[in-house]
Structures are given as structure tokens and as C-alpha cells.
């Protein structure tokens, strides 16, 4: 039986890994050889996009968009006023009348095997399956808390980040497992994000660093800021950049971590930290990070959308001064070059990111943006 399960896991995991690699290659086409590109011109060639923005003016139920999820040709947007899905160039909105747990949808995850979408809201966790919505709350289920900041699906498990710890729903047995200060090294239980894979699960804990769960051994590990809560970096790359972790993304055995005071990359041995003073990050205040692969990642900050290709940075945002579209590129030497663009994400305050082939979708405080990759 164990062999069967193992085989099943391998069979399921393999295409997932392949899919991730393909998406990564697509998303970075044209930027696959940053060093070569850098040599050929003054500024590195970084991906360029034409942003199409969606607001209430063209069908979105609310301009406050907390989360975005790409599901093939469908785009799901978690807004402050319902869960919207964009399909065949039209928006449809699910509300509490349809069974959604709450109007404010903070997080989204796709079960790639079944096509089911999981939505974390301010009042519970909803599963959208074939148009049917089932909702789990702290009152009607084992969910630890109704405020669901993050959700991630791994095989038959749904991992959830809530305001009162993490939890896991096993879809086969219906059993809930709660993770909190009583059974993990978590010292605070305000869990902002989760990234789950068949091997490792990471929880982003607001005020309690990064929590790692090894699926094979069942052991927990905890990564903290070595300088505690001093909010000063004594030694660069000494460890996690800050305890107030807001988002985590585990891709190709690399952990990308976002905090309100800078970001980190961890390869299992070494940490590499990113701050505005020594990277291309437009702000240390980062809401979300999404890794493309082991080298590349996207960051959603309060001052724009940032892309890191392993060496260089690009930032996409409406100008904080006059709102005009801006794109800047920062090379390895720290030289910042503006790039002429005519479009930008709907707002500089970025809350969610997902990829659609070589395109990018961005949830912002004033609308949803579709970044259409330009040649």
C-alpha cells in the first residue's frame, strides 16, 4: 500500500514539477540569459508588459483586489466584495448568496488535479467545485480560525494559514490538523501565508518568522531573524530578514520569503536577503512573493511590482508622484535605468501575483492588472 501511495505521489508530483518549469521558462523567455542580454546593451533586457487593468468600470465587483489565481483560461480574482471569475471575456461574481464564506476573499489556490478552487476569506474557507461552493468555518468544521490569509493545495491536503495558526484538511479522511503554539515552534499564531509541496510546507508567520514542516519526517523547523525584533541587520545574509513574515513561496527547493522589512531567499544552506538599499526592491514593505524558479521571483510591495531575475531587477508601477506608468531596470552594479512604457499595474500597492504562460496577473489595491508580455 505504501508503495502504491509513493508511486501515486511520484506520478502526481512529476507533472506538477514539469508544469512549473514550463511556466518559468515561458515567463522569462527573452530574459533567460540575463548576463548575455546585459552585455549586449546598457540596461539588461527585462520582461516588458502591456498592462490591461480591470476595475468596477469593466466588470470587477470591487477595486480592492486581494488575490488572483490563474486557472488555464480562467482568471479568479479575490476582491473585497466577492470572488470574481473572468472567462470568455466576461466577469462573473460569486457572493455569500452563492455560499461564499465572506465577501472579502484574501487568498486563492487551485487544486490542479481536480480543478477545484479554494478561497480563503475573512470568515471562512470556501471550496468552489464545478460551480458549487462548500464553506468551512471555525464553527462548522475543524478550521482553526475564520480569518483565512493563505491557502495552498498539495495532493489531497489543503493547507491553510489563519489568524489562529495553521491547519490542514485531508480531503480523503476529512480530518483537520491544527498547527499552533502547542505543537509547533510557532510563538505567534498569526499566520499570513502558506506554501505547500509534497516534500516541504512553509508557513509565513507574522511575528514568528518562517516555519518549515518536513512531510517525510513530520518534523518542524523554525527560521527567525537572527537579530530578533531589533529591526536592524547586523550581518547581511545572516538569516531570515525579519520576523514579520507576510508571504512565502517554495519553488525548486528554494524558499522565497517576503516580510514587511525586506525579503529573503533560502536554499537550504545559505540565506540571501534583499533590501531597498542593496537591491532593486522598490520598498521593503512586501505583501507577496512568488517564485518562478530557483533564481527568479516576483515581489508585490507597497511601491510597485518587482521582478528579480537572479541578477537584475525590474520595477513596474504607476508613478508615486503623478501616477504615470513607470518601469525601471536595475543592473548588478546598481545602475538604475528607466524604460519608456505606456502602461502600468492599476496601482502601486500590490497584493497578489500569478502567471499565465508568459503573462502576469497582479492584484492591486485599485484593480486587477493583466500584464501581457511584449516581444
Amino acid at each position, binding site marked *: 500500500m505504501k508503495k502504491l501511495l509513493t508511486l501515486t505521489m511520484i506520478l502526481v508530483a512529476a507533472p506538477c514539477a514539469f508544469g512549473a518549469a514550463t511556466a518559468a521558462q515561458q515567463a522569462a523567455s527573452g530574459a533567460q540569459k540575463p548576463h548575455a542580454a546585459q552585455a549586449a546593451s546598457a540596461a539588461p533586457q527585462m520582461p516588458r508588459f502591456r498592462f490591461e487593468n480591470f476595475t468596477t468600470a469593466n466588470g470587477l465587483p470591487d477595486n480592492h483586489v486581494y488575490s488572483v489565481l490563474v486557472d488555464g483560461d480562467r482568471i479568479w480574482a479575490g476582491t473585497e466584495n466577492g470572488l470574481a471569475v473572468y472567462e470568455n471575456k466576461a466577469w462573473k461574481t460569486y457572493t455569500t448568496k452563492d455560499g461564499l464564506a465572506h465577501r472579502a476573499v484574501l487568498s486563492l489556490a487551485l487544486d490542479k488535479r481536480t480543478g477545484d478552487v479554494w478561497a480563503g476569506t475573512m470568515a471562512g474557507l470556501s471550496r468552489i467545485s464545478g460551480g458549487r461552493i462548500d464553506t468551512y468555518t*471555525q*464553527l462548522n468544521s475543524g478550521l482553526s480560525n475564520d480569518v483565512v490569509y493563505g491557502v495552498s493545495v498539495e495532493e489531497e491536503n489543503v493547507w491553510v494559514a489563519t489568524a489562529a495558526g495553521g491547519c490542514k484538511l485531508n480531503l480523503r479522511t476529512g480530518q483537520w490538523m491544527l498547527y499552533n503554539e502547542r505543537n509547533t515552534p510557532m510563538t505567534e499564531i498569526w499566520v499570513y501565508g502558506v506554501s505547500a509541496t509534497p516534500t516541504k510546507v512553509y508557513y509565513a508567520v507574522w511575528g514568528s518568522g518562517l516555519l518549515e514542516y518536513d512531510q517525510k519526517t513530520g518534523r518542524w523547523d523554525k527560521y527567525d531573524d537572527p537579530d530578533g525584533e531589533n529591526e536592524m541587520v547586523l550581518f547581511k545574509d545572516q538569516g531570515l530578514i525579519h520576523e514579520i513574515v507576510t508571504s512565502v513561496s517554495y519553488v525548486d527547493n528554494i524558499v522565497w520569503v517576503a516580510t514587511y522589512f525586506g525579503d529573503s531567499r533560502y536554499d537550504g544552506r545559505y540565506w540571501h536577503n534583499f533590501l531597498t538599499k542593496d537591491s532593486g526592491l522598490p520598498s521593503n514593505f512586501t505583501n507577496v512573493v512568488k517564485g518562478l524558479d530557483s533564481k527568479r521571483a516576483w515581489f508585490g510591495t507597497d511601491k510597485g511590482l518587482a521582478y528579480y531575475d537572479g541578477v537584475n531587477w525590474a520595477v513596474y508601477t504607476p508613478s508615486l508622484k503623478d501616477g504615470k506608468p513607470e518601469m525601471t531596470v536595475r543592473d548588478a552594479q546598481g545602475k538604475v535605468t528607466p524604460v519608456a512604457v505606456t502602461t502600468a499595474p492599476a496601482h502601486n500597492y500590490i497584493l497578489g501575483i500569478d502567471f499565465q504562460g508568459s503573462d502576469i496577473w497582479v492584484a492591486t489595491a485599485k484593480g486587477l492588472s493583466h500584464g501581457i508580455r511584449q516581444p
Partner: protein
Amino acid sequence: MILRSQIGARTALVTALTLLSAAFAGVGLWTGRTAQADSRDSATDALDYASPLEVLFSPDDTRFYVLCQQSEEIRVLDAASYAVIKNIPVGRVPRGFSLSPDGTRLFVTNTWDDTLSVIDTGSLAVVATWPVGAEPSGVVEDRSGKRLYVANRISSDIAVLDAQTGVEEKRLLGGRGTSYLTLSPDGAKIYATHIYPNASKQPTDGGNRSVPESEITVIDVARAVVQDRIPLHAVAGVFHAAFSADGRLGAVAEYHPKNLVPLAHLEHGGAFAYTLTLFGADVGKPVELPLDELERYASQPFGVAIAPDKSRIYVTCGGSEMVKVVDIHRLMQFIRTHPRPQSGSFAQDLSASGNYVVASIAVGHNPRGLALSNDGSKLIVANRLEDTLSVIDTRTNRVASTIPMAGPKKISVLRHGEQTFYTARQSFQGQIGCASCHIDATFDGLTWDLEPDGFGRDIVDNKMLEGIKDIGPYKWNGGNPDIPTECGPRTEKYFWRSEQYDNLTLADLAIFIRNIPTRPNRWKLPGYELTPAQERGKALFDRAVDKFGKPIAEYNRCSYCHSGRAGTNRKLFDVGTRKATDNSGMLKSAPLTEIAQTAPYLHDGSARTLEEIWTVFNPEDKHGRTNDLTKDELNDLIEYLRTR
């Protein structure tokens, strides 16, 4: 349904029960009714019935396969001579089967050991037995032979398996109690139905009065994902579906309960409508049509078949012991010419069926599965509780022959009790049998307004029947001291609104109900060991001191009220759940048998989940001391309860 494997060990018990029933009945009250058991001899109870449940024709019409639930085998019969070619033993309590598209493999689901038997139709031997999900029921292979779909009743999902290896790829969310699967004629979609209504999304003001909602789950075969869900409003209990050969017309058999009006108002049509929902291109938006006639209800519709020439729909009615024949041309004319209600349902119109039901063919006890020969000339019906197959000539709509399943001729006490349980003959206009609400001798997931004490008063949750012997008194208020009282005067007068059972029939019914076997509990580990969470939960269940060190009063401990084998001490308590519409707050402690499966909870079904019993409906700790528990601990307690 009694299992072959249980019969031998139970003989002594049955003997005692039989004597008990005889004593109860007052020996000498035998009325000689033909439906009664042939003998009062306990030896007759150890009879190895076949109990044919489903039937299939081979692709070339030369043989047919019969799934025999009680003898736990597949019988292969010659379609011309009806001679038995072979009996193939399968797993425990088989429920569903289907042929691979090329007819070379027969897949059989075994509900009690959670396996799938793969039979090679050439050698007529089981060539593989694959572990599958909890209580596998329907099974279908896709046209390409790549994937196999299995409906799991307990986990309410559809497992997607590699059709060659049996390795499970994933599970798709179905309706509650997912049980039957039908492949569309073009092979592009699978339609899944379920026997219990989906959980209510929004409780009503009273928290316990909601119209049931069911669905047909539509699976996109190419992607193996749920593509759509066809809503079935006010429907609870959905069984087989069938398609016309052109794929433009689908029909599904279902129950339309009227559970929010007093059940006793049978004279007002107040229990069920038994209906077909039609869907597909021919009808556009789904439309629900009754099979019932004014004086003759079509109780417990189950199997559906559509003639190859799309002229007729055939529906078995397990409680009415007949096959209804629907003329499709007249049916479509009715739909076209009658203004369709906004709900899409004609269920309340008892005059409707006169327009399209053209024949009612009497068959044997509890007809279930049916199969049409490929040329449509012959319809085989499995009479589960008569151990026969009815062969219907579709040109004349008459039973041309009856094939015995080579089992015992005698009707045992248990068999007679089971027949009584399923039949609707006893009730006013043949509306209901016990099995109308206790589907497959379980429950129905509904709350009912049972008695004529005013609309909306004393709403009660329907309860599971497994493992209920010796836990009287019965009813939520403990008003009936024993099963014969529960099933006798109460049922006859209030529910059936008709003549009473003769005493021996009532005794046999009670014996059957006492002996309904309890299914294996899927939350228990092998060897009945407990997981760490279950262990922690058991400690909470058994505790006598709360987390603050204060003693918990005996009446407020889980283990006191829910003690014993079935989890009830059979006493009445006020657990603080009385509603303004309840006549009393004193309730019998509920048994815990298979409690994980029997949502909703509390006497009126107001708790939609186990968690809600304590998170919503126990604010004053009257239903056990639980408000000192953390969420983790409550989860542990529930993990333990699921093992009961």
C-alpha cells in the same frame, strides 16, 4: 440486507428473536397472508438468498450478468435459455457493476471491503481486486480504457483510477452519498448521482427547516474534472440515470420528499413525489416530472432505461413492485404543451403522469436494476427481495417469464421482514415504505415534520437504523418503548394512514430492523487501534474533570449519556437544544453508531456538522462540558466520535 457471512453466526440469535417475536405476536395469530414468512422455524432464517440487485446484458446480447448482493457473486446467465453459465464470487456486499466499453472486463464494486473486482468476461474469472474508496458503488470506464471512475458513497466523491493498474489518480467532489455513474453515449461525460441531499448552505431562521438540494455531478471525461452540477431542487435521493442513444435526452430517478409538512398528511399527498428529472438538449432546462398516479404512487424509483429507438423510458419502483413505462413522445408533448412551472417541476401534479405513463408492470419484491437488450425487445428486471428476474416483453409490456435465481424457495422471517420494510403496499395509496425514508435501510439526511401537531412543530431528524437493537426507548422523545411499538401503531396510524400490520408481519419487520448489520467503520484503524488524535479525543470523552480541575457532573459527561455499545444510556436529558417549536426539551441520548455519516445532528437536525453541536448549540455546557476545550481538543473529540 443481511450478509451471507453473518447468517451462520446469527442463527442462535435469530432463534431467540423468532421466539420473542412469536411471543410478542401472540402465537396463533397467523393469518395465512401470502406475503408472510413460510415458516416460523428459525432454521429458515439461515437461507442463502442471492438478492439480485443489478443486471447487465453483454454487448452481443448472448448473456447477461446479475449482481447478487447477498450471495456476493456475479451470476452469468445465457440470455436465450436463462441457464446459469457461471457464478463468480466477488467481495463483500457488491453494489455496482459495469462492463468496459469493449465488453472484455466487468468491474464490480464491493461495498463492505472497499474493493473493486475485475472480471475477465472471457474466462469469467476475477483477474484483479483493487483497493478503492469508502463504500464504492457505481463504476464506469471511459471509452479509451484509460480511466476508471468509482463513486464512493461514504466519502461522497468519485475516485479516478488508472483503468489498467487500479492506481488512484485523484478524487472528484460529488454530491453527498455519491452512488451511481452513467457514461453519456458519446463518452464525453459522466453523470454522477447521490442518495443523500447536500448539506444545507444557509440554515433557516429556525435552524432546522430547509428544502433539500441535490445535484447531478457532470464530469468532463477528457480532463477528468467536474465540469458542471445540474441542480435538483427539493430532491433527496437520486438513483440511476439513463440516456437516449442519441445522447439528447437524459432521465434520472429520484425522490422528491415533502419533509416540511406533517408526514401524517398522506391524504394530501404529503410524503413524497417520485419523479424523473429530464435533462439534455431535448428539454433544454431540466424538468421534473412525477411518475405517481393519484391512487397508485411509484414508490422508490431506482433503475432507469431508455429504449434504443427512444420510444419508452422504463423505471423500476422498488416500493411499488412495478415497472413504470413512459411514452417519450407523449412525455415530450406534455412538456411542450404545459406551461412549465418556474421551478421546472411538475412534481405536485398528480394528474400529469396520466399523460405519459402508459403501463405499470407488476414484477417481484423490490425491483431494482434493469437492463434492456440491445435490440430493445427484452427488459430484464432484478427483483432483489424475491430472488427472481422478470423478463418483460417490451412489445406487450408484459412479464414474459420469471427466472428464479436458484435460491431457497422459502421466505424466511428476515426476508419477510425486509420485504415489509421496502414495500409501499401497506401505506395509503402506496405512497411510502420504511425504505422511502431509510434509504438502503440507513437514513435520508432529512429533518421531517412527522406528526399532525401543527405545521412546523416538533421537527425531527431522521435517524440511522444500523445497530439500534436493544437501545429502546425509541423516538427522539423516547415515546416508544420498543421497535414493534415504533414500527407498529405509530407507523400504521400516523405514517401509513391505513390498515395495521398483522402481528406476525410486524414481528418480522421488527426482527429485520433489529438485525440490520452495521457497516465497517472507516475511521477505525485496523485492529481497532486509535490514532493519537483519536486517543486524545477518547480521553476527553471519558473525562470526569474539566480542564480547570473541577469535577464534571455525571450527567454532563460524554461517557455517561453516550455509554455502552451503541453510545446511549437510553435516558432522557435536556441538553439545551429545545426550540420554540418543540413540544418538549427532554430527549433521549442519541446513539453514536456510524455518527460520522449521519449529518445533520441534534433532534431537529439543526447542527449541520458534528462541530456545530458544540460550537453553536451548546452555549451553556448543557450538552456535555465542552466550553473549556480548545479548538484542537474539540477536533480530537470529533476524531474519536467518528470511530463509533
